[in-house]
């Protein structure tokens, strides 16, 4: 296939006008010895049906059809066709970052509404127009805290998503930041209240990675006591029923926004949500869409507070982010408006109810235990008498993606499997899962 419109005659005509002979002449000013002389080892072109057969074959060799009980930030929530249809409008899909506001009012207004709805669910007044994903949003939160406090120590809960911790580590390493991990006990963070040091931030998951609901007041009070920013990593769907980080007094909230309007997509593209208090507004990383007026006084939207950004501020920018995850933010905005206050609450409550139903079922399996003794929301660790990696493969044969094996990140939970439930799982799925798990364990 070829997506250039030029016919051979077109090329000849254009070259002629440019007083060139052959297409190669376009590159004659490039030092000759640098230029490629032999052909590269690249694939032969395919026709469209051939490409489709090839890529379709790759798609078929993934077991996306398994009934999904894996979570860890990426959840299998119901994604209505209407959200998908609107998100994929070519005007949203094929436009660039809305620098040219007069012809980008669509994207700019959706981003303004996205910011507003992220503010609504987080209970914080300012939200940006998206970051790459939850974990990199965590990095930006830490970076913001470091800049705002001029400190270089970061306290993180071991209950924070391990991938978020790893991303923070990667960054901290380069910037000579000290990251102190606080343990989890019985599923909840046991903050070392009198640990020494001057943390820039205290970062925790709410619910945390094991699904457990943390104590907001303790964390926020401690953070503020230490002069640190309280930073919560939240599950956006759970905000349908849980107290918001803003209401709890957090300074910054970030989230993996995938469950809002985005398919699981093997983990990307998804979307990072990021919200802060008004005080931190000018430190926010990434784009902000703001409301203003045109010269006739008509309401319009524009990218604003641009002096925080790399293209204006260069090495002094609050972040290096340029391309973000706008289309995923558009999806999130559309999904949030589809859900509304009652839809998001019902989704959250059903997920929680079903998780607890499943936990009760699983508890009855011999030699299997729930791995936390604190209140959890829609996700929980199961302790198995077998290697959870093996269990996942065995459960896949029975049609289930059983969860995320925990030992890789929590060696102290050797038989741990993290099980997530969404409103999409029917009673039949839940019962079937428990039965299959029982069989797998009995078969071992």
């Amino acid at each position, binding site marked *: 296939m070829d997506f*250039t419109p030029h016919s051979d005659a077109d090329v000849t005509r254009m070259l002629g006008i440019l007083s060139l002979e052959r297409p190669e002449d376009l590159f004659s000013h*490039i030092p000759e010895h640098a230029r490629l002389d032999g052909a590269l080892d690249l694939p032969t072109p395919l026709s469209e049906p051939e490409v489709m057969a090839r890529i379709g074959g790759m798609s078929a060799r993934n077991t996306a059809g398994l009934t999904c009980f894996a979570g860890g930030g990426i959840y299998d929530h119901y994604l209505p066709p209407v959200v998908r249809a*609107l998100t994929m409008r070519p005007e949203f899909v094929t436009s660039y970052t809305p620098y040219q506001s007069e012809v980008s009012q669509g994207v700019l207004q959706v981003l303004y509404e996205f910011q507003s709805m992220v503010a*609504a669910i987080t209970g914080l007044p*300012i939200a940006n127009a998206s970051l*790459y994903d939850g974990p990199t949003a965590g990095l930006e939160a830490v970076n913001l805290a470091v800049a705002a406090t001029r400190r270089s120590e970061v306290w993180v809960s071991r209950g924070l998503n391990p991938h978020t911790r790893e991303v923070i580590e990667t960054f901290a390493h*380069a910037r000579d930041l000290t990251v102190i991990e606080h343990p989890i006990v019985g599923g909840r963070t046991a903050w070392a209240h009198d640990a020494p040091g001057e943390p820039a931030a205290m970062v925790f998951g709410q619910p945390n990675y094991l699904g457990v609901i943390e104590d907001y007041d303790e964390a926020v009070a401690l953070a503020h006591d230490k002069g640190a920013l309280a930073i919560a990593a939240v599950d956006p769907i759970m905000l349908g029923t849980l107290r918001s980080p803003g209401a709890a007094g957090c300074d910054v909230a970030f989230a993996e926004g995938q469950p809002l309007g985005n398919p699981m997509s093997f983990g990307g593209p998804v979307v990072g949500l990021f919200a802060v208090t008004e005080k931190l507004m000018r430190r926010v990383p990434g784009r902000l869409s703001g409301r203003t007026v045109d010269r006739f006084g008509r309401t319009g939207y524009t990218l604003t507070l641009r002096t925080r950004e790399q293209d204006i501020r260069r090495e002094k920018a609050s972040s*290096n982010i340029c391309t973000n995850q706008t289309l995923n933010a558009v999806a999130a905005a*559309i999904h949030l408006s589809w859900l509304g206050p009652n839809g998001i609450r019902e989704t959250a409550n059903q997920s929680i109810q079903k998780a607890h139903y499943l936990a009760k079922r699983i508890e009855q399996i011999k030699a299997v235990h729930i791995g936390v003794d604190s209140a959890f929301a829609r996700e929980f660790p199961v302790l198995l008498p077998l290697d959870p990696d093996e269990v996942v493969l065995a459960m896949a044969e029975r049609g289930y993606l059983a969860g995320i094996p925990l030992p890789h990140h929590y060696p102290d939970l050797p038989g741990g499997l993290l099980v997530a439930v969404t409103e999409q799982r029917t009673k039949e799925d839940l019962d079937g899962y428990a039965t299959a798990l029982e069989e797998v364990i009995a078969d071992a």
Partner: protein
Amino acid sequence: MRDPGARASSTPLVGGSAEPTLRDLSAPGRQAWSLPDLDVPRRNLDLPEMADAPPALPEVAERDLVAHFTRLAHRNFGVDLGAYPLGSCTMKYNPKVCDWAAELPGFRDLHPSAPAQLTQGILEAVVEAERILCELTGMSRASFQPPAGAAGELTGLLIMRAYHQEKGHPRHKVVIPDASHGTNPASVTLAGYEAVSVPSNAKGMVDIDALRAVVDEDTAGLMLTNPNTLGLFEEDIEVIAQIIHEVDGLVYYDGANLNAILGVVRPGDMGFDIVHSNLHKTFATPHGGGGPGSGPVAVVERLIQYLPGPIPTPAGDGAIVWEQPAASIGRVHGNHGNMLVVVRALTYMLALGGPGLERVAQRSVLNARYLEHLVGKEYAIPYTAPCMHEFVASAENLKKETGIRAMDVAKALPDYGFHAPTVYFPLVVDEALMLEPTETESPETVEALAKALLEIADVARQDPEYLHDAPHHTPVSRLDDAGAARSPVLTWFMEDSQ
């Protein structure tokens, strides 16, 4: 001001009023959502930290929701509507078959934690995309974790840091040309380095003497894009690389402009050590109004061990496994990167194949050269070297003559049916207009664009006021950006406190 109701008056097609926000359209008791009833017994769980009320989201019916977002789409320009010559951004046409690919349930509905045994198809896609990308850039291996160009830059800089650390010489400076993209210096800071700027010479290229003057044993490396942001091929590239390599620095290739050189010359062959590619530019994955992108980082052999990981790697038995590079800098994305963007890019690469990819370079340069030729008499081209896939023209003469600035020219183009070019970048050219037609525009489109630019110059002479007020045929006219920044209204909660 609450203005509910699903009037269509905001669509450019049939009127010009502003579109109400979702909050304006909201009314208590309206509902779009629809879920089955809970099918397990509802228990009183008595959980902690429960909210008293659900979040203050708008309440709208599906019908009003659809009308709202459809009308908003009608207020937005996109490549599918016409030419988008936004320099540096490579806004080429994105083939629809790639949309099809990214919607395949086998990719779309896949959880990132599913083990390799259950995801061989998508891992094969990544391995294949990596192979093609490395072949095109002359690198050895790549990681697809970085979700955009800037993330790729940060990743590359962290690799530089790991390299020097391992050598026992942690360094502090990274050199970047003054014409570089803003993400370059911003990434340098984020990676804990100091950015050292090196000026361009009269030819629009890196000034070699100035470069020599700033490079020393504390130089971790250099970041460069080639063709550079002026659309010119840095002819001394090998000398530049040598200068950096002499102090054991690493040379980083900002791949935003890779489009111009596909199959013509490879960063690896020019002496680069680390290359990021913008799949959302070069490999035709759509830009989504600002994202998602994908900024894979590819490196030469000796740097493989530092790549972020894990990386899908074919094992002896043909199966693909996740492998962690020996001295990996660690994770730079929560999962595996923007995998569905990679699927789109691979679809594009397979469709074009080698000959098609080479034609991309040829025809993007041909179109740019042609456009430059057509508008060059009116808008001065500040450098003499032939342009590659884009070029920077200056409206400086027009400004002197008529008062009309580059911004006014850009704002006038939508009235002619085109998106505006990039303006005032790079900073080294006064009244810069950065034009990149891309290879997917026909010669006639390039001619029509040139004609529009020439007409605008005519109008500038005859009726500059008209251009000051341009555009005239868009849903809104020029916006009060200063006011927006002075008293920011970023959410509808801030409207209330206005």
